[in-house]
Every structure is written in structure tokens, then in C-alpha cells.
């Protein structure tokens, strides 16, 4: 039998192999639970996450997305097993629930849910109720619109009462819109359908008008309008900090956005007193609205994991954290913070205007993502 010698090289090789394997070998007692969230980056408060991890001996792993369709795709590809919590807005939670990607929830296990503004109470806010079973499918979080933020020192306020403002040649090179294709098309659709007078006509889905369900004629009108708009835009901003800089510097005087940048501009320390930023929530042709939510994926079963998810949501919608999120992300909250806010904060964060959400068209899934993609590509290529 051949005798094997233990050489220095073999010891080093074995040591290196063992060291490389160490991160993957852990005793059972050292295993911590992980809460995995698919969420918007703006809502991450590192200190809140750290405290949650510490108190519950868990690891919180966040994955970020930009738009609903992107999150939906990620959830579908990875399956609900890849994430425990997910965020969505508008009618998207209904789609998630229909596709079995999220589960029903019980507000009784999230004490902070008792502090919702009247419009977002479980029995009133039907967007998060499954029509078939009547069960709740998620928790409202922040709300807002896709309105026009403008510098009133340059743009007359009455001009922004209509979506035409974003297509005004007089503001050429000083306009900006988001890079999200759904909202660009849906907002332009409000103007096109208003001009065509086609909202009252029978709709393709047989339901009342929804700017996310359009006829081919309307889509064609949208395409022409967006191509015209291209020449007037400085850029389509990719993120809020970019838009903030563009508006604050005066390079852009009017932009469609989620009112988040508007609030950041108002609360900025180095604010230019000559600038007078204002936000139009709803234009005469209508407006788009959103309510961000927290949803629990169908991969989470009853038990410790669901308890952890509920605890996290409860923490996130607590008054103290919601106030901070409103300040950091610049959004209005669905939790009633009027008792702990100043008059100025009530005004800036639209705390007394939450009822207006009912008049806005909620963010939704495009009737045909393929058709909408062609329209958007044609606009981009024109």
C-alpha cells in the first residue's frame, strides 16, 4: 500500500479548502431567519432595518425595483418563494393576488393598521380587497399622484391646470418627464381621449374608462403626441435626485412626477427664494394616482415567518416611522399623522387632501404590454 506523506503543501491546500468552505457551513443553532423584500429603494431606512434585525434576530434582505411591471416580472420569474414581502401600487396588488403571487392578510395582527386615514381603512379602501372572497390582500403605505411640479416664478399656475402644459412649445427644452413608459403613455392618453371625446364611448374591456385600457386609435394618438413632446424635453429623468437637481438649478421648470421631488424642493436647506415650486395634483383632463402597499407573498405560510412579516409591516406603518418616510421619500402617508404634524407639514404632505385619491385614475397594468412597448419604442426611435 502506498504511504501518503503529509506535506506542507497538502496542509496548506486542505487549510485553504476549509477556509473557502467556512462561509457555507454553519451550525443549526447559528441559523437566523431571513426576511426578503422586493421594494422601492426610497423606503429603506437603514437604522429602522438594523433595529428590526436586532430585536428579532433576523436578517432583512431588500431587492429594489423601479416600476410595477419590473417587480411583477421578478416575482413571476423567481416565484413567490424568492421573496416574503413585496411592494406594489394601484391595481397591481389585485393582479398579484389573481396570479397567486401574494396571500391574504389579517389587519388584526398589525396593530398600527388602526391608525389609517379614513380613506384607507380596511372597509373603505376596496383596492386592497379581493372582490371574490372579501379578504384583505395588503396594507396601504404611501400615496400620491403623477402630477405636475412646476416653478410658478416661470410657469403661470393656471397653465398647469391642464396636461397641455407638458406639451407647450413655449417651454421647449425646459420640460422633463419620468422614464417610465406606462405613466407617460397613460398621462398622454388622458389628453388624447379628452381631445377625441372617446371616454364615454364603449371601452375595449366593457368597463368605465381607464387610461391603461386604450383603443388602437387612442394609442396612435398617444404615439403622435409623445413624439411631438420629445423635442420639448430636456431629458426623461431616471431618478428623483436627477429631477431635483434639474428643477433646483432652473434647467427644468415643469415636470411630471410623484410629488416627492416637489416636497424635497420645498424642504431643501439651500432653497432659492426666487423659486416658487408648486404641484398640481389633478389636471382638468384627469390625473393618475397611486397607493403604495406592503404585500405578503404566497410563499409565506402561517407561523413564525408570517409573524415576522407582520411585525415588519407594523413597524413600517407606525406613526413615528411613517413620518420619517414621508420626510425622506417626500410622499404622503396613509397613516393619520395630523396629531403629530405642524400646520405646514399638513399642507405640504397633503394630509387633509387624502380624499382626492378617489378622483384619480389608479396606476394599472397596460391592457397590452406588447402594444404599449411598440408605441414606446416608436416614440424613442422617432
Amino acid at each position: 500500500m502506498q504511504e501518503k506523506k503529509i506535506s506542507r503543501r497538502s496542509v496548506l491546500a486542505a487549510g485553504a479548502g476549509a477556509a473557502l468552505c467556512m462561509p457555507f457551513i454553519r451550525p443549526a443553532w447559528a441559523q437566523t431567519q431571513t426576511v426578503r423584500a422586493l421594494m422601492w429603494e426610497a423606503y429603506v431606512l437603514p437604522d429602522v432595518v438594523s433595529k428590526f434585525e436586532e430585536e428579532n434576530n433576523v436578517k432583512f434582505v431588500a431587492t429594489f425595483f423601479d416600476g410595477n411591471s419590473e417587480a411583477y416580472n421578478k416575482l413571476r420569474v423567481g416565484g413567490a418563494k424568492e421573496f416574503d414581502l413585496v411592494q406594489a401600487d394601484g391595481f397591481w396588488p389585485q393582479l398579484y393576488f389573481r396570479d397567486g403571487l401574494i396571500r391574504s392578510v389579517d389587519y388584526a395582527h398589525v396593530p398600527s393598521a388602526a391608525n389609517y386615514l379614513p380613506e384607507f381603512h380596511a372597509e373603505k379602501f376596496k383596492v386592497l380587497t379581493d372582490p371574490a372572497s372579501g379578504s384583505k390582500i395588503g396594507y396601504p403605505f404611501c400615496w400620491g399622484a403623477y402630477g405636475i411640479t412646476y416653478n410658478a416664478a416661470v410657469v403661470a399656475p393656471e397653465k398647469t391646470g391642464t396636461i397641455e402644459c407638458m406639451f407647450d412649445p413655449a417651454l421647449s427644452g425646459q420640460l422633463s418627464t419620468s422614464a417610465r413608459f406606462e405613466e407617460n403613455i397613460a398621462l398622454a392618453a388622458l389628453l388624447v381621449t379628452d381631445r377625441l371625446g372617446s371616454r364615454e364611448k364603449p371601452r375595449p374591456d366593457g368597463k368605465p374608462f381607464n387610461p391603461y385600457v386604450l383603443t388602437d386609435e387612442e394609442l396612435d394618438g398617444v404615439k403622435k403626441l409623445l413624439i411631438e413632446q420629445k423635442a420639448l424635453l430636456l431629458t426623461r429623468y431616471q431618478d428623483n435626485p436627477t429631477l431635483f437637481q434639474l428643477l433646483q438649478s432652473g434647467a427644468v421648470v415643469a415636470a411630471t412626477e410623484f410629488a416627492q421631488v416637489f416636497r424635497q424642493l420645498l424642504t431643501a436647506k439651500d432653497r432659492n427664494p426666487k423659486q416658487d415650486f408648486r404641484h398640481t395634483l389633478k389636471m382638468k383632463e384627469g390625473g393618475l394616482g397611486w397607493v403604495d402597499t406592503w404585500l405578503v407573498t404566497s410563499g409565506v405560510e402561517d407561523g413564525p415567518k408570517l409573524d415576522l412579516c407582520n411585525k415588519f409591516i407594523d413597524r413600517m406603518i407606525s406613526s413615528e416611522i411613517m413620518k420619517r418616510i414621508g420626510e425622506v421619500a417626500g410622499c404622503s402617508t396613509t397613516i393619520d399623522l395630523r396629531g403629530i404634524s405642524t400646520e405646514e407639514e399638513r399642507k405640504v404632505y397633503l394630509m387633509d387632501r387624502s380624499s382626492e385619491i378617489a378622483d384619480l385614475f389608479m396606476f394599472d397594468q397596460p391592457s397590452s404590454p406588447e402594444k404599449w412597448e411598440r408605441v414606446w419604442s416608436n416614440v424613442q426611435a422617432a
Partner: protein
Amino acid sequence: MSEAENRLNRRLFLHIPTVFLVIFFVLPLIALVVLSFWQTENYKIVREWTAMNYVTLATEPAYFIFFIRSLFMAIFVSVFSVVVSWPIAFFIVRHGGRYKLILSLLLAVPFLSGEVLRLIALQGMLGPTGLVNGVLLKLGAAPLRFIMYSNSATFIALVYLYLPMVVTTVYLSLLNFDFRLASAASACGANRFRIFSEIVWPLNLSGTIVGFLLCFIPTLSAALAPRFLGGPNGVLYGMSIAQQFGESGTWALGAAMGVVLFLFSMLVLGVFSLGIDLRRTGFTGMGRQ
């Protein structure tokens, strides 16, 4: 070492990279090709064989326009990078002295930060409130509109991103070039232009082509630079592919676009490889300078 151990070592040496390449390179490519012959409807994959995505690419002018934009951008960026790289690399090789290595390593400094960070920094430089236009505005001059959210801004960004690759490749080629050949030509009465055009350039052409391709291929599929800097008219092919796999959820069409890009890149590589003669790459085997 026994013959059996030797064979085992040889197998491990070859099989590990082969398995790695098959799993992470060949299989994803096959998956991409398969996906390109399926369809996506309402964010769902329909597993029915169809060439519809390729028909869409052939009939919708938008995708062709994106491709042509990308192609021109890649050609301009690569040619410009080669033109700029040559004097830089030549200077380092001929006059770098004992700092040659340090100077060549300095070229890699931008790679120490991420691509997104570099692009955001560039956005700050070229934007309406950036360093360039900020200074111009302070001086009372009009801002340079062509560098703000335009194809020019994307061009600057792509040159900034890939120039170090081209310089490094040309530098390595020149480093191994036997400059005694140039001295011999000079001694025989050739002027500088003739020495460059008939000796230095042809003997380093292969290295230059490799540098060109290292810039051309990634530029052809660039997605981030046009996204951050391109503006409303700056959408390129790679950005459109990213859009199909991201917010649009039209993955099958994106896969078809990817296959077309892959085939075109292979074609370019094939054509250019005809011009590469490894015996004439500057590696003359006659020792270094």
C-alpha cells in the same frame, strides 16, 4: 507522479473550465435562442414555437433605428479611441522609462470604481448644472446644450469607459514591438511617416484591431451610458434590450434582439479576425526595447 494522477490532473485542468463555460456561457445562450422563438403575452411566456419576434424586428423600423444608432456610435467611439490611444501608448512605451509600468497601471484606475458611479459622475460633469456648463454660466456664457442629455454625451461617456482598454491593448502591442526595425528603416533613409505607415502601424495592426474590438463590442450593446446621458433621442439598441427584460416584460422580443446582436458581433469578430496575424502583432520575438 503516476500516469493515472497525471491524467486526472490534466482532466481537471481542462474539465473545470469546460464545465464552467458550458453552464454559464453556452446554456444561457441556448436558453436565449429558445426564448427568442417563444412569445410573451401580458408578462407571461407562451411556449409555442414562432418566428414572430424576428418578424417584428424585421418589420418595425424602431428596432432597426436603435441598431443603426448603436452601430454608428460603436464605430465612432472605437475609431476615436484608437486614434487617441496610439499617441498615449506610444508615449508611455517610448518615454515612460522606469515609470512605464506605473503609467500603464494608471490606465486601470477608473476601473476601481463601478460603471454606474463613473456615469453618474460624468452626468454631474456634463449636465446643465455640471462642471462644464456651471463654469460657462458663471462666466456669463451660454451652456453647451450638445453635451447635455444627447448622443454627444453618450459618445463622451463611452470613450471615457472604454479608452483604457484600447490604450492598454495598443500599449502591450507596442511594448513587444522591436523598435530596432524602425531604427533600421531610419538608417536606410525612410522618413518618420514612412517608418510609421510601413513598419510601426502594420506590425501593430493586430494589437490595434484587438483594441478596436474590445471597445466596439461592448459599445454596440451599451445600455447604461445612453440611459443616464442619452436624453430623449439617445436610446440605443442595448438600452432597448434592457427595457424588454425590465419594465416592458417582453422578454421573448428582447431575447430575439440579443440573438441578433450576438450574431452580428460574431460576424464582426470573424471579419476582423481575418486581419489579425499573430506573427505580425509586434511580438517579433527579437526581444524588447
